[in-house]
């Protein structure tokens, strides 16, 4: 199951040239670009690991692409996303976030039904891969 999170996730994966253009768009707007990665793709998992520091003082997307290449080298088997953080007063939040890398195989999520009193059912989802401990998933 193809993970759809963040912007552009219903489009085919962005090419590097497109990622670069998006990153440049963020930089030109003064947003700090960040790379984050995870192997726990649950939609409620908002705390992804950060790759390095936020790149708030770069002028050109080439720098981000360099970091992305390195991040892919190390965590190419995980999800990596790029986010643009706007620090201006009143916004102070992520303005743009999209996936730039995904594992080769994406088994997706299983639906868990929990029987509750009075025949009611509580539903929840869990990524198949999260059965295994962190760092050993998507192998």
């Amino acid at each position, binding site marked *: 199951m193809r993970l759809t999170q963040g912007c552009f996730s219903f489009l085919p994966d962005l090419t590097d040239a*497109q990622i*670069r253009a998006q990153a440049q768009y963020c930089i030109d707007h003064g947003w700090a670009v960040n790379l984050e990665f995870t192997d726990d793709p649950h939609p409620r998992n908002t705390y992804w690991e950060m790759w390095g*520091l936020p790149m708030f003082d*770069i002028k*050109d*997307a080439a720098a981000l692409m360099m970091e992305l290449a390195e991040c892919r080298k190390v965590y190419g088997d995980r999800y990596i996303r790029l986010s643009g953080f706007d620090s201006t007063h009143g916004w102070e939040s992520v303005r743009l976030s999209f996936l730039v890398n995904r594992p080769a195989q994406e088994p997706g999520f299983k639906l868990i039904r929990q029987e509750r009193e009075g025949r009611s059912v509580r539903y929840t989802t869990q990524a198949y891969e999260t059965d295994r401990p962190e760092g050993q998933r998507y192998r």
Partner: protein
Amino acid sequence: MTETTRSYEHPGITDPMLDEQAPGTAAFAKPVAAVAAGPAAEKAACGELSSATVDLAKELAEAGIEDVLRELDEELIGLAPVKTRIREIAALLLVERVRRKLGLSSEAPTLHMSFTGNPGTGKTTVALRMAHILHRLGFVRKGHLVSVTRDDLVGQYIGHTAPKTKEILKKAMGGVLFIDEAYYLHRAENERDYGQEAIEILLQVMENQREDLVVILAGYADRMERFFSSNPGFRSRIAHHIDFPDYAEGELLQISEMILAKQNYKLSERGREALERYVAARKLLPHFSNARSIRNALDRARLRQANRIVRSAGQVKITADDLMTIEAPDLLASRVFGQQAAASSPLSNESEETFD
């Protein structure tokens, strides 16, 4: 190359939607098609190319580098060999740009430079202009200058250097990285010095990301020479070595007049004579750093002028002209004139600040 540039102008997602193929195959299909069309298209292009004409004058006007070069001529005094060299480089880059448009060259040219010369000869100023020129010609995308020294690149403990250097490189991407006194990166006496690590990262990026970043190394000629001979990798990666000559006395006077004019000051007739004498005397003293020494001297002259005016405030009316004029005594009070004799003795080893 052109495709990348185009996508800069339209940072939106347009084509993937039109592309009906699966993402994987789409990515593979494109290069294959390009390769298939490659040789045939190239042959066809060659026939057209030889007859294609180029309006170089128009290109020149479009790039707007003529303005930058004129500014360089007007605002930078002296430095004739440097200006000639920059004109040559600019011409080369312009031709390169036209060639690229016609598809005659695909490789990004090596643009890394080394500026050698004594302190205060305008290396940083020229580097800033260089960034402008490269930006106008489209060889760097942003045209900003990041000026660093050893401290900014080299860390203090193991594992500190690489991230630090990379951080700076990232900051400079799309622009020009100016490394002042680059020879401090290499410490021959300490083979475990972290500088070597910074050098290795620098060399790697200078080679692999030529289109993203231009590196300019600067420093004194003799020490740079030693630096290059112990790091041959640097010399071969640097295309342009530019030597900055010292300023002649006349040029230093012109510079001081320009500095003063910018701050709405002027020299009186006697003041000019005094400055001439000052420049001649200061040149002989140790720690003379060309235009920088002159700028410092002028700052001190302004200080004395202000002091003189304040003291005379009770007795005479001060006019705007008085506030603008630097008189001979403001300059002649300098200790440079007293030090002249002392300087010739080898014992005199005073820093510049003491010449007050």
